[in-house]
């Protein structure tokens, strides 16, 4: 069969097709004044790292990209559940920024973005320095609304870790689960909608059950949900019955009446139905956009509204908001979504700053969840930019009763995805 290689391809150079391209935008910003345009990206996660990488990679030196991220090593929130289930070492979900700096020339600044001066297009760092920008990308992830759970606080999270940002919180959950007494009880309090990683609390429970089944098989898990239903519910409940029959009890908010109080000292969680005593617990409060999005003035309530075609803020055309912090209806708040949104924003930003072609926005998301050894399920959708919001084009979900080979393939696929997306963010 005919194979086109780079050499052959080069011989075909010279003709241009406008396939799929939107109108050529006017070039704006510093580029028009002779200096290189500058993009500052706040947050080095799935949205920010991907945006920085694609803008730098595809602009081929035409745009200066500065990434502001306090951590020198980024531990992904996705797959942290697999660490809880003993499927992964914690070190395996950590990633550095050397690839972005060395391979694409991104200026990685390990500092905290303290504030944004949108009027003067400047970011002020905690160290006191300020950085000017032509375009700013904000991808800060989430902050916790601690007071959404009565009795919960920053202090309480040491005893009832939320673990909803990767790092020591997740390690604390594992430590506490490992030290539960024989036949003890783990209580999970998932957050209300909308929140990061909708299937996450239920995958976490699956992974803790997997650990307990091997190490503390008479232990129990109680889920005191703040919702009457949850993502992939049928698939999870089917899996729990197959693998952990009798170990996991999910109690709907309509049954327990809501979380009235949590007491980290006594490890009690009070509801209308009963007061539950935990030997270990994970309490995940309601969430909101990361603080810098609030500071930049691009939020409306807890989240930042965006223009679906570009991910530009509705409040400031020079600021783009990606990932969990954005109002990206109908996309879920996930690493996959943030990565997808980042590519749309990168394409739009390059177009604005260098006049490169801007292609029509298209988005995708798939969320894999591991229930037990070689037993994975997934849900996914494709999306397009609607006039007011990001709309679903098509979607799928794993079926109940899939055979073992399919469930194993789904798990292996998730491993491949992890390898792919982290390379897409950091290499």
């Amino acid at each position, binding site marked *: 069969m*005919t194979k086109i290689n780079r050499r052959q391809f080069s011989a*075909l150079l010279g003709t241009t097709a406008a*396939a799929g391209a939107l109108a050529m935008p006017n070039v704006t910003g510093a580029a028009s004044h002779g200096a290189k345009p500058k993009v500052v990206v706040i947050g080095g996660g799935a949205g920010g790292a991907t945006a920085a990488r694609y803008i730098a990679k595809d602009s081929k030196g035409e745009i200066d990209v500065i990434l502001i991220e306090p951590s020198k090593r980024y531990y992904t929130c996705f797959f942290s559940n697999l660490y809880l289930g003993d499927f992964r070492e914690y070190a395996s979900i950590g990633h550095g920024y050397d690839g972005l700096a060395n391979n694409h020339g991104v200026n990685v600044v390990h500092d905290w973005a303290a504030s944004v001066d949108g009027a003067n297009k400047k970011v002020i760092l905690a160290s006191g320095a300020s950085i000017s920008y032509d375009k700013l990308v904000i991808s800060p992830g989430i902050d916790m609304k601690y007071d959404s759970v009565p009795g919960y606080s920053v202090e309480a999270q040491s005893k009832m870790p939320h673990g909803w940002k990767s790092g020591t919180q997740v390690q604390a959950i594992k430590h506490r689960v490992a030290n539960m007494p024989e036949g003890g009880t783990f209580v999970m309090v998932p957050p209300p909608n909308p929140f990061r990683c909708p299937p996450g609390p239920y995958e976490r429970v699956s992974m803790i059950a997997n650990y307990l089944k091997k190490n503390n098989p008479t232990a129990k898990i109680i889920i005191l949900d703040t919702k009457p239903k949850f993502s992939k519910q049928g698939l999870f409940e089917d899996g729990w019955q197959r693998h952990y029959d009798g170990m996991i009890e999910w109690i709907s908010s309509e049954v327990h009446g809501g979380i009235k109080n949590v007491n980290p000292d006594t490890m009690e969680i009070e509801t209308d139905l009963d007061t539950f005593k935990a030997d270990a617990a994970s309490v995940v409060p309601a969430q909101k956009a990361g603080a810098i999005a609030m500071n930049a003035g691009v939020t409306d309530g807890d989240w930042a509204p965006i223009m679906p075609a570009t991910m530009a803020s509705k409040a400031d055309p020079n600021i783009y908001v990606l990932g969990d912090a954005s109002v990206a209806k109908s996309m879920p708040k996930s690493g996959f979504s943030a990565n997808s949104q980042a590519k749309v924003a990168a394409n739009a930003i390059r177009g604005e700053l260098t006049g490169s072609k801007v292609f029509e926005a298209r988005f995708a998301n*798939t969320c894999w969840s591991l229930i037990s050894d070689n037993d994975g399920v997934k849900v996914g*959708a494709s999306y397009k930019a609607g006039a007011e919001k990001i709309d679903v084009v098509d979607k799928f979900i794993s079926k109940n009763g899939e055979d073992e080979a399919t469930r194993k393939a789904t798990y292996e696929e998730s491993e*491949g995805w992890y*390898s792919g997306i982290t*390379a897409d963010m950091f290499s």
Partner: protein
Amino acid sequence: MVRVLVVLYISINIFSITQAVAERSGKLETKAILITTHPNEGPVKGDFEYGEYLAAECVTCHSATGKDKGIPPITGWDAEGFISVMNAYKIKDLENPAMQLIAARLDEEQMASLALYFATLPEAE
């Protein structure tokens, strides 16, 4: 940025297409595949830059360096084989709901552009 127009002729040779699926999809189950061809059986235009943009969606899962870990590599495929496999997903002759979803929204120009782009990347080792 490299911009190019390349004309790709989709082979309608059943043997070569089936072979392409067998060779390229590795772990995927292969079977007799019904082929959809260009309605006019004429040339399909692919655009490298458009392909590069569209490929960003693919490399979230399929590593751009072609490393295979649970997800088949797609770098270095010949364009005809690539288009054949994507069409097979589009008509649900190959199973995988995520790929069926992706393929379903690709028109012929987009498939050709993707095929053109991935054909220029080094084949997985």
